[in-house]
């Protein structure tokens, strides 16, 4: 028995040394706290936000959104659309090299678009590209797309993460992009330890001169929120995207941490199943809207935001405000419910349990609806069940969710008026949205969208809660960490650690 303490001493000493050796990294290395493991690093085989947030650094797109959300040249230095909207010509940059040394040419663009269009790839975004009838490459630096019909949103699809350009040689050889991405992006893939860390190093031959500034980026996967926050406070994490409002006080009082508050592009809603009695009655949907104090829900559940009034994020260039339609008015709600004869029917709010903020919002709204005399209970479901049973299966009365932003309003609005998960039908809305996708002039499009959005605002298949703020935390010596507008991906090209 006497020997044991000695072992403990060695054990302890060893650990002290091992602990001290850790985290001896260069100053050009940025550690980013990622909340989960991406499903894959193949940009054309998933719709997962985490994937696009990570692969943004590996790949480039033909065009991309700038900091204001305007689409600007990237791998294509210019582009033009024929007057009939059917022929799109892209002129490519000549100084771009893939991470494997291959020169970037029009063949890569054609191969990538064909990969998306190939049914065997089963890209979840294929439908956004199906109006491309023919892809021609008259020379190595020109790509001509012929469309079957005018389709303005195509530019946004080409600028989104799933429009990432892959090298044609590796597409041909069946390379596993999901495990080992190869692109033209600012950082080269180094290693991915699943559920733990993704490492990338600077691409010295990146086509934007002098960029990127960092030498390495490490995505550290930290699932526990408390640990993320402590990591940022202590300095083992340099940047975090989504800080829970509850954790703000700890970080705001820390002089080494800077918190930036930005409007997200989320469209937060409580959706109503309008195929179900009595939610098919407009008066009941109006009553639900009058009963809810949206600002309170935004402030308490989501850490603040801008109240919405229709189905678009409040910061969107196409957004029009209709908030005078249904102000908070519980008395009016009670009257409408009485007129509609709702009585004792019990309603259920189904919420995905993996989104604690939506759960909190649902609880607040349950209380507000109870206050006007409705019987409401909450049902928590896991994300898979929400997708298949609630969203696709239509098994719900109410559900609380945030629709992610899109570069083009068509991405958000396509299909509404023709059912979607709220089972709401309005042929005027449906045709205006379809028509707007064919128009490329901003003012003409906005007019069509405003007409559709006004009907959606009046007929309220949703409670439009609005758009929340996001709190991005960085160490104070981290400068110019950017997030791509609407896509919410991470852009480390200009980022520096001083």
């Amino acid at each position, binding site marked *: 028995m006497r020997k044991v303490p000695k072992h403990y001493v060695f054990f302890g000493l060893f650990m002290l040394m091992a602990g001290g050796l850790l985290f001896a990294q260069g100053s050009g290395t940025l550690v980013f706290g990622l909340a989960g493991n991406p499903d894959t690093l193949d940009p054309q085989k998933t719709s997962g936000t985490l994937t696009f947030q990570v692969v943004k650094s590996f790949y480039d797109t033909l065009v991309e959104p700038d900091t204001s959300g305007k689409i600007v040249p990237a791998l294509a230095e210019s582009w033009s659309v024929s007057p009939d909207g059917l022929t799109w010509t892209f002129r490519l940059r000549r100084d771009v090299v893939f991470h494997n040394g291959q020169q970037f040419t029009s063949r890569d663009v054609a191969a990538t678009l064909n990969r998306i269009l190939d049914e065997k790839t089963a890209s979840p975004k294929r439908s956004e590209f199906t109006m491309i009838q023919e892809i021609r490459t008259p020379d190595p630096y020109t790509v001509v797309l012929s469309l079957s019909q005018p389709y303005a949103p195509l530019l946004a699809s080409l600028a989104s993460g799933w429009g990432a350009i892959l090298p044609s040689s590796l597409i041909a050889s069946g390379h596993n992009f999901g495990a080992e991405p190869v692109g033209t992006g600012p950082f080269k893939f180094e290693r991915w330890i699943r559920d*733990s860390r993704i490492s990338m190093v600077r691409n010295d031959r990146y086509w934007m001169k002098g960029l990127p500034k960092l030498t390495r980026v490490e995505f550290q996967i930290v699932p526990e929120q408390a640990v993320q926050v402590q990591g940022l406070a202590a300095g083992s994490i340099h940047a975090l995207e989504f800080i829970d409002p509850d954790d703000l006080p700890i970080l705001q009082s820390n002089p080494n941490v800077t918190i930036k508050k930005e409007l997200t592009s989320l469209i937060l809603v409580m959706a109503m199943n309008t195929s179900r009695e009595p939610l098919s009655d407009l008066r009941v949907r109006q009553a639900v809207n009058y009963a809810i104090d949206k600002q309170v829900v935004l402030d308490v559940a989501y850490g603040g935001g801008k109240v919405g009034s229709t189905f678009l994020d409040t910061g969107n260039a196409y957004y029009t405000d209709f908030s005078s339609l249904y102000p908070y008015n519980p008395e009016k709600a009670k009257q409408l419910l009485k007129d509609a004869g709702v009585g004792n029917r019990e309603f259920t709010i189904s919420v995905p349990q993996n989104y604690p903020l939506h759960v909190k919002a649902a609880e607040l709204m349950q209380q507000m609806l109870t206050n006007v005399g409705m019987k409401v209970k909450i049902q928590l479901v896991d994300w898979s*069940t929400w997708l*298949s049973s609630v969203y696709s299966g239509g098994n719900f009365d109410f559900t609380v969710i945030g629709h992610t932003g899109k570069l083009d309003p068509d991405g958000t609005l396509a299909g509404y008026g023709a059912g979607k998960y709220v089972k709401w039908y309005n042929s005027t809305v449906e045709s205006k949205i379809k028509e707007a996708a064919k128009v490329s002039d901003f003012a003409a499009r906005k007019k069509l969208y405003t007409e559709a959005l006004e009907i959606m605002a009046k007929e309220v298949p949703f409670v439009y809660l609005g758009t929340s703020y996001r709190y991005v935390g960085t160490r104070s010596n981290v400068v110019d960490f950017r997030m791509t507008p609407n896509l919410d991906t991470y852009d480390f090209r200009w980022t520096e650690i001083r």
Partner: protein
Amino acid sequence: MNGIKFAAKRLLRLILTLFIITTIIFFVIRVIPGDPALIIGGVDASPADLEAIRARLGTDRPLSTQYVEFLWSILHLDFGHSMISNEPVISLILQRFPLTLTLAVLGLLIGILIAIPLGVLSAVKRWSGWDYLGLVFSQLGMAIPSFWLGILLLLILAIRFPIFPLFGADSFAGLVLPALSLGIARAAIILRHTRASMIEELSKEYIIAARAKGLPESFIRYKHALKNALLPIITITGIEFGYMLGGAIIVEQVFSLPGLGRLFLYAIYQRDFPLIQGGVVFIAIIFSVVNFVADMLYSIVNPKIRLE
């Protein structure tokens, strides 16, 4: 010879068990709501895109076809590819197994090192200061949730006194706190069993006989009583070890460790059918192996017990 017969019998039983549970799990995960194609496609995918994804995954075919194909590939020891990440199930599991194994072994060692000496001491010196210490420890160890203990350990030993890393399993240091929080919970359970088992042995007649024979007290306690008391302790330790080898979800979550627990948890969240099936088979095999080893240990500790 006896050992080989015993092992063969066990193997047969394992195969039967595997057949039954894989069949149950195959149908259960497909009956509950959820569709991996929706996880891949998300809310914006068009119906046509979802159909293409289902065709790629093979989930558009009749269940019976899928089941026959599943049995056929299992017979060839082929667990297929993850539906979500498209990586081979075997390699996903084997990537994470070393970490989970290390963690389980460390956790068990810490558990045993705390529990057995303290448990024996508690039993030998009943109602003494040691005994109360043991009782309080095991009560607390079982009552404190391991995620809370984990966060507490991190706050003290990684933040307040930055001795250990806050996350990651890059070095041995990163495993100390998770092993400690696993080990303390195990220790609490093993300690209770050790104490109870030891008290029972010490009250048996052969102990009185040994004392009457004039054997030294320490010889009686550690050579005779402890050896016999070990049997139930081995059983409970084996079960605890089996659980830890299946992955310690909460501890992996708190300490950001890429272990089996998180792999299987997300597989269930995402309805990644092949990965769930592979995980179930893996855990079943692990439990059988651990039980087999525990049975072997029985006969080593007490040769009167024969393997049958």
